[in-house]
Every structure is written in structure tokens, then in C-alpha cells.
């Protein structure tokens, strides 16, 4: 046997080593949401109060009659009411003088679309909540319909590529940037290929939530909806970061910083190739996609340069 390596730094961030879930959960093989869900309480702790809503997380987070799949305190909101219910819970605990970490955990369908108004409201009021979005770029649980974080050109069940369509005709909403623009105490992007970075951000979230609103946007590819191989999901995350399609940054009280600067960014075509929701894209469309990636990254870079 070869010489033992020291355990990765990420373990140092774990408040809990055992996750509070049952061993067998109804998430697809290779699901990045499963990894995210099991990862979050390891860093944030098991005594959080979790607020969620319908979506891919619901079949695991919601009880079924009396039964449940996990041991966390959980509040099931409607998609329209996650950040607002969490606000109420958080305000009550503050009034009662109790130090409780309230964590929202939803998909992009909630954060970017139907739950955006309360999210924006909670951010503006600087509520003491950690809001985590797992962004699989669509409404996956209901059959891979497009959401406003679905990227330009993606073929989804409601923007299918066909003889008369090239997939989604508009670009994605940049939710973490919108949250940072609202002046939240702490905003960060994270993904599953860079777990040290993710853990560090979650640990920071736990501290920053004492000051106000925290938002973490996790890039979480969907094996089924994106039509990728089950064993490729982590690699897809890595490729997204390496192509600057999903840059890893954080903004603390409006000050931006890249937490992982990619020395030699890869062409986005490499990221698009194994993701079959993009398989219909032609050369010219991939060029357009690259331009969009470059322009978005340039904006983040500029923001990081602001003192």
C-alpha cells in the first residue's frame, strides 16, 4: 500500500461527522443534490432549523405521515413562502433570545422564480437566515422544465430543441449576483467539485448570519435533466469552474473576491460536450455561449477590483 495522505482540509470544517439522514434516500444515483444535502449539516451542524419547499429536496425532507428520512428540525413551506417563513422563524427565535441557525434549502425554481420575491425581501431586510440554493438549472422534480437559471440554448422539457427551436432563447438569471447587489451580509457561489471551498463558505455563513442575510448558490448538475452520466456529475462541476462558466466567488458586505481563480480557463465547449442538454448546439451557438460566459466573468472580475 502506498503512503497514507493526510486527510483533506475539508474535514476540519465538519461540526458533525455523521450525517442526520437515513442511509437509503430517493435521490438518483450520482445526484449532486444528495451530496449537497448530506454535506451541509456536516458543516452547519445538525441543530439547524431547515426550511424547504416542493422540489427535488422535498421527497427526502418532507415527512410521510409520521415517518421521516432525517433527524433535523424541518419546516415545509410552499414554494412561494420559503424565505418568508424562515424570516418568521428566525425573528421569533431572536425575540425569544435563542441562538438558532435558520437555513433555507431550495432549488433554483424557488429562489429564482416563484420564491424570488420573498427571497429579495428577506435579503433587503437583512434577515438572519442562511439561504442555500441548489441550482440544477431547472424544475427537475416535475420533469426538467426550464427555470430562469436554465442557461441559454439548453434543451429542457419546456424549451426542447427541435425543428423550430434552439432550446431556451434567453440567458440565465444570475441570482447570487442579484443577492450581492442587494447588499446581503455574505453571498457566495460554491459547487461539489471544490468541497474545501464549499465547506469554508458554509463555515463563514454560520458566522456571517449573525450580522444578517447570507446567500449561497450551489451549482448542482442534474444527472437526469442534463442527460449526463451518473459518474460524471462531480467532473461536470469541476469543468464548469475551469471554464469560468460557474466562477467561485464571495461577496462580504458588497466586497467581491474570487475564492478560486482559474489560471488557464478551459473553452466552455469542453464543459458543454458531455452535457447532452446542449448536444444540439451548433458551432455559432457555442461561440455565442462562450461570449456570454466571458462577459459574465468579466463583470465579476470588475466587481472584484472595486475597493
Amino acid at each position, binding site marked *: 500500500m502506498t503512503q497514507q495522505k493526510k486527510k483533506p482540509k475539508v474535514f476540519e470544517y465538519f461540526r458533525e461527522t455523521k450525517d*442526520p439522514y437515513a442511509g437509503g434516500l430517493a435521490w438518483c444515483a450520482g445526484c449532486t443534490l444528495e451530496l449537497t444535502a448530506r454535506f451541509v449539516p456536516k458543516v452547519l451542524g*445538525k*441543530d*439547524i*432549523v431547515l*426550511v424547504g419547499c416542493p422540489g427535488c429536496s*422535498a421527497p427526502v*425532507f*418532507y*415527512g*410521510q*405521515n*409520521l415517518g*421521516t428520512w*432525517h*433527524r*433535523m*428540525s*424541518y*419546516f*415545509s*413551506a*410552499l414554494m*412561494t*413562502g420559503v*424565505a*418568508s*417563513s*424562515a*424570516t*418568521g*422563524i428566525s*425573528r*421569533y*427565535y*431572536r*425575540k*425569544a433570545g*435563542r441562538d*438558532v*441557525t435558520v437555513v433555507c434549502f431550495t432549488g433554483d425554481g424557488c429562489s429564482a422564480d416563484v420564491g424570488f*420575491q*420573498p427571497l*429579495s*425581501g428577506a435579503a*433587503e*431586510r437583512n434577515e438572519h437566515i442562511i439561504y442555500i440554493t441548489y441550482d440544477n438549472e431547472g424544475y427537475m422534480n416535475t420533469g426538467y422544465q426550464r427555470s430562469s437559471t436554465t442557461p441559454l440554448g439548453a434543451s429542457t422539457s419546456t424549451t426542447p430543441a427541435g425543428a423550430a427551436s434552439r432550446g431556451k432563447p434567453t440567458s440565465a438569471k444570475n441570482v447570487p449576483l442579484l443577492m450581492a447587489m442587494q447588499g446581503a451580509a455574505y453571498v457566495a457561489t460554491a459547487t461539489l467539485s471544490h468541497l474545501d471551498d464549499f465547506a469554508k463558505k458554509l463555515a463563514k455563513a454560520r458566522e456571517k448570519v449573525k450580522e444578517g442575510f447570507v446567500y449561497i448558490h450551489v451549482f448542482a448538475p442534474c444527472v437526469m435533466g442534463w442527460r449526463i452520466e451518473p459518474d460524471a456529475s462531480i467532473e461536470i462541476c469541476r469543468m464548469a469552474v475551469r471554464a469560468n462558466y460557474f466562477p467561485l466567488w464571495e461577496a462580504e458586505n458588497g466586497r467581491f473576491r474570487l475564492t478560486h481563480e482559474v489560471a488557464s480557463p478551459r473553452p466552455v465547449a469542453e464543459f458543454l460536450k458531455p452535457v447532452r442538454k446542449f448536444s444540439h448546439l451548433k458551432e455559432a451557438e457555442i461561440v455565442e455561449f462562450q461570449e456570454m460566459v466571458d462577459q459574465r466573468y468579466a463583470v465579476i472580475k470588475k466587481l472584484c477590483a472595486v475597493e
Partner: protein
Amino acid sequence: MIAQRGKVRVITGNAAAAYGAMLCRPDVATSYPITPMSEVAEQLSSFRANGLLDTEMVEVEGENSAMNVVAGASMAGGRVFTATSSWGLSFMYDAVQHAAGFRAPIVMVIANRESPGILAVSGGQQDIISVRDTGWIQLIVEEGQEILDTIIMAYRLAEDHDIQLPVMVNYDGFYLSYMATGIEIPEQADVDAFLAPLKRQPPRQVLEPGVALGCGTHGIELGFVELRYRQCVALERAADKLDEIDRNFGEYFGRSYGGQTDEYRMDDAEIVVVASGGAAGTARVVIDAKREEGVKVGLLKLRMFRPFPRRRLAEALKGRKAIGVIDRSVGFGWNCGPMYMELRALTPEIGIVPMLSYIDGLANLDITIPHIARVVDEVNAAAQGKPYQEVTWIPLEQ
């Protein structure tokens, strides 16, 4: 009466609502402005700004959030309060249903206004009707003092261990919301004492950080049916519970309102006028005048709309010769008043007697003394066997 006499202030219905809420010491309250109840939010904010209210006030970005915030806070263990009207109520509709499913003991005041469908910034009870199937307890009050007092009673009712249901306290927008009358503000210590029995009951289930309890489980098959059944049964229990609380309130504060219904000159009444809200007050004046003329008419004021006080109403209406029902709203699909429609369902208990539906008071058109006098006359004629019109839209026949 045990409570001290409180200070009398000349304040609007909205302000009375704010005082009622303040006296009950909510942990979390939300506010979003909508005519005609914006003043409730302003008053509460003012109380807070002046150190009179130690409540987490959340100035939400919309009514949907107003309800979700208090629902979350309630299920975390807090006493909560919110207020809205018509369109705001529509916007929070999903959250309103959700809150009842949680069995969150929220108290919400609604300054009644015409509901969406036709834009109107005017009074009516359509908003009450639009949410009658959400699982909430719905109470309707007649005047300012009753607003304040009913809010206190609403907390006793909502948070009662046997009930655990949210309560809407409805009052006429524009009429009661803006009308200033002399209202006795109870002393804080007395309100505390009146609500203290709740502390002696077993605590309801609330969120417990670190404990594996999930609020709002997915109801599956029989589990769902059971939860629905429990909601319905609890709602039914609220009727008698309200009467009990109203009696206690009367003993303690010296003011009581009848609970589910209030009967005026009903003992020997041959004909009955059924009304709710401010119109009931006007009706009393007409009843007295008609009695002078020898008409044996009585008023049945409907205070509790959900649960529908069927037993009380059946007892009160049995044996009468004719009944007139004044609705400040419309019943879509039946083309008559909604309260009239529900009273008709009591025919097996009260017998087939002429029942006349009057739709009046929509869009801030007043329900006047002459209008109600006409109701009494027509109901009286029907009682004597003369032909009558089943449904009358009074404003259109003016």
C-alpha cells in the same frame, strides 16, 4: 366584573385593532399597507417606535410574505398578528390555507373590502366569502369596541389547546376602519390575566431545533384524511368554545357579545332579519322602529361565519314565519347572497319558511335604515303568505 375600567380614547376601528393586538403582546407581527387597513400597520409601528410594543415587526414586501412570516413564527412557538384586506388576502391565499393546515394559531384582522374581480377601493364582505373554505375561524364584528375585544378573545380561541386554528377578525372596511368612536382600552394587566389560562394548558407542538420533528409532513392516503378530519372537528369545536370565551370575557370585562350569534328582540319575534357587521347596528335601529309599529321582528346578528353556527342558528330560527338575510357580498353560482345560501341549508331543521335574500352594501353603497325597513316589510308580507321575490339586489332597485 373583575377588570379595572380602562381609559376611553376616541380612535378609529383600525387603531382599535392595533390596540387589541398590542395588548395581547404578539412576538412577531407583519404589516403591509392596503386600503383600508394601512393604519393598523402604522399604529403598530408607532407603538413600537415609542417603546410600547416589544414585538418583532416585519415590514414585508407583500401580503403573501406577511402570512408566511407569521405562520413560521407561530410554528416556532410565537404569538403572532397580521392584518390585511381584499386583494392582500387574495395574494396570501396559498399561505392562508397552509397556515390552517399547520394548525397555526394566528390572529389576523381583515378590514373588509370588495375582492378582486372588479377593481374596487370600497367596502364589502366579498373578501370574507372568498376565503370561507380555507379552514380558518371567521368572526365578524359590528363596531370599534367589539374589534378590540374580539381580538383578545381571538387569541384565547386560536391558542386553545382544543382548537389550534387561525382566526380572522373581520370588520367593515371604510365604515369601521375609519370611523372614530369612544373605545375603552383595557388595562394591560387585565388582558394578561384574561389570556393567562392558555399558559396553564398543555403546550402545543412547535419546532424544536436539534429535534427530529418536521412541521408540515406530507399527508399520504389515510394520514391525509385523518389530518383533514382533525381540522374539521377542531373547527366545529370552536363554536361552543367561542361562546365560553365570550361568557368569560363578559364576566371579566363587563362586555359580552353573544359568542357565535347575538340575538336582539328575538324572544317573541315572528320574523327575523339576519345581518352581520356594521349593518347589524343599523338593523337594531330599524327593529326598534318596526316594533313600535307592532311588527314582531327580531335581529339575528351573525358573529361567527366559520364554523357556520348551524346548531345555534337552527335553534334561533325554528318556528319563525319568515326570514330575511342581508348579505354584503354575492354568491357566485347561486346568484343570491352567500350567507342566505348557507342558511337555506338549515331548512330541514327550521322547516320550509319564506327566506328572502338581500344583496346590499356592495362597493361602499350604504345599507341604510330605509333599506332595512324595506327588508322588514317584505319579509313581513312573505310571512303573511303574500308573494315575494327570493333574491333582491337592493342597489339596483333604487
